[in-house]
């Protein structure tokens, strides 16, 4: 996986997110409306695309898109 593809996958899930706005360093809670449904959408996408499970705790501890990306990379290896 690479960051560009990861961001594209996130953009595809959230209608509010204009392409190109989200960056690796973006705080994902501020980039699109952050609520429990959107958390489930993100978890579902990561599970389907990368076969990695994100817990509630993972999301609480993550701030940026890069934080989540690193979690996925670590768990895939």
């Amino acid at each position: 996986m690479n960051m560009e593809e990861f961001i594209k996958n996130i953009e595809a899930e959230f209608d509010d997110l204009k392409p190109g706005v989200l960056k690796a360093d973006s705080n994902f809670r501020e980039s699109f409306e952050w609520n429990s449904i959107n958390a489930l959408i993100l978890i579902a996408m990561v599970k389907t695309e990368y076969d990695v499970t994100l817990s509630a705790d993972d999301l609480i501890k993550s701030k940026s898109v890069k934080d989540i990306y690193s979690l996925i990379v670590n768990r895939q290896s």
Partner: protein
Amino acid sequence: MALFSLPGIKISGISAAVPKNKESNADYTWISVKERESLMKNIGVETRRVAAKGTTTSDLCVIAAEKLMDELNWDRFEVELLIFVSQSRDYLVPTTACIVQDRLGLPHSCVAMDIGLGCSGYVYGLSVIGSMMQQGAIKKALLMVGDISTLTTCYRDKSTYPLFGDVGTVTALEFDAAAPKMHFNLQTDGSGYKALMIKDGGARNVMSRQSFDIKKVGKGIYRSRLHLELDGIEVFNFTLREVVPNIKKLLTHTGESLAEIDFVVFHQANRLINETLRKMLKLEAEKVPYSIREFGNTSGASVPLTMIAALREPLVTGRKKLLLSAFGVGLSWGSAIVETDRICIPDLIEV
């Protein structure tokens, strides 16, 4: 391992009764219009049936059973097994199934008992009935599965209130030595029991005045200790972790592939969960029916309700092989492969 096959039982019919009263999540003003739209699109619940106060699950199941037995031309005196699977029983004591035995005019030779399971209840109920019937002594049985879930959700809890709907279902089963085997894979992980629970009112936390206090738990989430609480992410991850391996193990056991299955009927948890499972199993959309848009999450009854609401035509007219998969509160989950042949499905009853 609870992986087994049961010969000699066939499903003769299924019936369901829902309350007339319909609530739409478009009118759920506790949350913003935008949140309502996201809820309806992603969680997939647009409308839900809500029972009037005083209507019990068994009331709905009895109405459904009367109609089904009439259409099947069943003599009440031949029904010798009745199982009521629910988490919303009539009384704390006695067992609801006993009361239902009498209301339906079933004989005193009838075995009647409750099973206290929720989401996974239909596959568990089928396995218990099938196990008791397979030796052929009991010829006819009724499996009632249903819940009035709306009684225990708090309006000011956005994480539960807009999800659940009420229904009572009944499945008629008959001993038939020539029937194809039913196959089951049933599992449990009680370490996750807190993910879906009502804390007070049982023996662990006896009901007290404090049980009724409604407290803020999070943004848009207020409830008492007598209301259902649901940890969405926990349940979501449990489902994505357990359901696909459970189904694959069952298929390995029977030596079948998903290509041989006509329909995969999932518990109607939420659309996002079910669509993710569908993609993980690489199933075509046509093979995975839904009832959640119209009826919400109907607990253990969601599998038979989906068969009635979305598969009536194929099930009434032909021979079908179904994979049923149900998962949730407990945590308890399981799958079953059942073959049906032109079963009786009366029109959905509105009460």
